[in-house]
């Protein structure tokens, strides 16, 4: 791609912003447009389920200190911001993006960074039922938790669910977390470590109910309770549904791009079209030599993919693969959980430090054939970091 023309980043997110920065830092000096469905400039989402909910200071209506850019950086980026505007369709043959209201945008290159949206359950719409993804979601939930709510039911004990439950417990609310699986975070952590992390709920004063689904909601216009599949009824003033996300690809139907639970890309974030790349939660990347693809919903992946995708977009093909070690963290009930690596079912767990049973934190390594595959730390930031670095340098386990 030449440096003249237009590149449009669809998604004013962490990943989208880093792609925009990546384009500029790698010499792209053409027109740069950022389209964002939300009304806000890019902001950092991880605090929304944590200190944003528990903090005393009124967060106001904007991103405030969560903003990922300041005016100086925005000036430097020299982008046109179309905020509160949704991309409705991509016509790759015409090189056009159709926006809300029928307006079209001519573009030579596209960075798809539309992220993901919370999955929902087949439940009636009722006041008091929340999901948490965006800043506006968090503003609404924060207000609801402070409007006299006493009992909160969180549906789903994944990271968002656990962090929201933890924040509610910190606010002194009565919290019950309902998880359909036998244990939360089983696919991510494996049974042994999932059991350890599940124990954090009880330690933090929340009740965790596993192995039961949700049958329905009680209430008229406003929710009063959650009916479980096993017949139990949980009274609730506020319900938070945290049952995962699905990538936002609806606007790409008919674009000719391959959509498979995300936008299919090669290992360098490039789609079947060399002038269209995808980054962040929406991107499903090839992993050569493994026979599978991966769509990461991790903050760090979103951030790091931006620069790689920008480089490959400007080069016209993949000259740099994205191969960062998967990493995520979660803050729950005063404990910091950190995970890095590529665990697979059947990997064994070895405790390197501390004792998972005593609540004082620990460091664990996952292994296959005596080689480390992943690391898990609870309140062990320093040795975890050392292990994470070793994993990043170690040869990749076969097939992962």
């Amino acid at each position, binding site marked *: 791609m030449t440096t003249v023309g237009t590149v449009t980043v669809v998604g004013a997110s962490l990943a989208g912003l880093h792609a925009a*920065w990546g384009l500029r830092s790698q010499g792209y000096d053409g027109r740069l447009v950022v389209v964002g469905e939300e009304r806000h400039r890019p902001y950092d989402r991880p*605090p929304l389920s944590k200190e944003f909910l528990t903090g005393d200071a009124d967060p106001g209506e904007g991103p405030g200190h969560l903003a990922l850019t300041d005016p100086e950086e925005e000036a430097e980026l020299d982008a046109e911001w179309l905020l509160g505007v949704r991309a409705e369709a991509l016509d790759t043959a015409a090189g056009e993006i159709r926006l809300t209201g029928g307006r079209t945008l001519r573009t030579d290159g596209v960075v798809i960074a539309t992220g993901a949206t919370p999955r929902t359950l087949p439940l009636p719409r009722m006041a008091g039922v929340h999901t948490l993804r965006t800043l506006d979601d968090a503003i609404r939930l924060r207000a609801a938790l402070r409007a006299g709510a006493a009992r909160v039911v969180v549906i789903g004990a994944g990271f968002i669910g656990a962090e929201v439950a933890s924040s509610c417990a910190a606010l002194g609310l009565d919290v019950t977390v309902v998880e359909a699986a036998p244990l939360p975070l089983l696919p991510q952590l494996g049974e042994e470590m999932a059991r350890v992390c599940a124990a954090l709920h009880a330690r933090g004063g929340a009740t965790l109910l596993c192995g039961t689904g949700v049958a329905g909601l009680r209430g008229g216009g406003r929710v009063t309770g959650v009916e479980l599949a096993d017949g139990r009824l949980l009274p609730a003033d506020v319900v938070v549904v945290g049952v995962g996300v699905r990538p936002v690809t609806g606007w790409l139907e008919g674009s000719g791009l391959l959509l498979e639970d995300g936008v299919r890309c090669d290992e360098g974030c490039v789609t079947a079209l060399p002038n269209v790349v995808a980054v962040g939660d929406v991107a499903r990347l090839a992993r050569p030599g493994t026979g599978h693809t991966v769509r990461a919903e991790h903050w760090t992946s979103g951030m790091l993919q931006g620069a790689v995708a920008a480089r490959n977009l400007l080069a016209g093909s993949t000259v740099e693969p994205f191969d960062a070690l998967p990493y995520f*963290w979660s803050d729950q009930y005063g404990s910091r959980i950190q995970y890095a690596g590529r665990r697979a079912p059947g990997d064994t767990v070895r405790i390197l430090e501390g004792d998972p049973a005593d609540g004082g934190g620990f460091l664990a390594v996952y292994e296959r054939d005596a080689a480390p595959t992943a690391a898990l730390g609870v309140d062990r*930031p*320093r040795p975890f*970091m050392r292990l994470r670095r070793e994993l990043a340098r170690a040869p990749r386990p076969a097939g992962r």
Partner: protein
Amino acid sequence: MIPVCRIEDLPEGESVRVEAGDATAAIAVFHTGGAFYAIDDTCSHQDASLSDGWLEGCYVECPLHAALFDLRSGRPTCLPARRPVTTHAVTVVDGMLYVHPSVTAVPGDPVRTAPEEAVA
């Protein structure tokens, strides 16, 4: 002036977190490259303790998101951090290490521990 520890208790490559009292944020003190440095302990990006970070030369990497800070200036050298952390002066008196909490972010001069540059 806050006492940190005896200099022999903070060997090369190590760091320590110092509670600076209610009015001041916690401070991280590092011993690296033959010098002591002190900066705010909390990463300017998100809540993480830089004294738990990875020390390499005059830089510390945040243990949460790998933001890199220059210990001499407090300035981040890569994303995700964009704001500097405050640096603090360090002195050694009779083998005892002290930090002098700054009020505002100013580049702090490291205290050399090499004998010819020792500050007493």
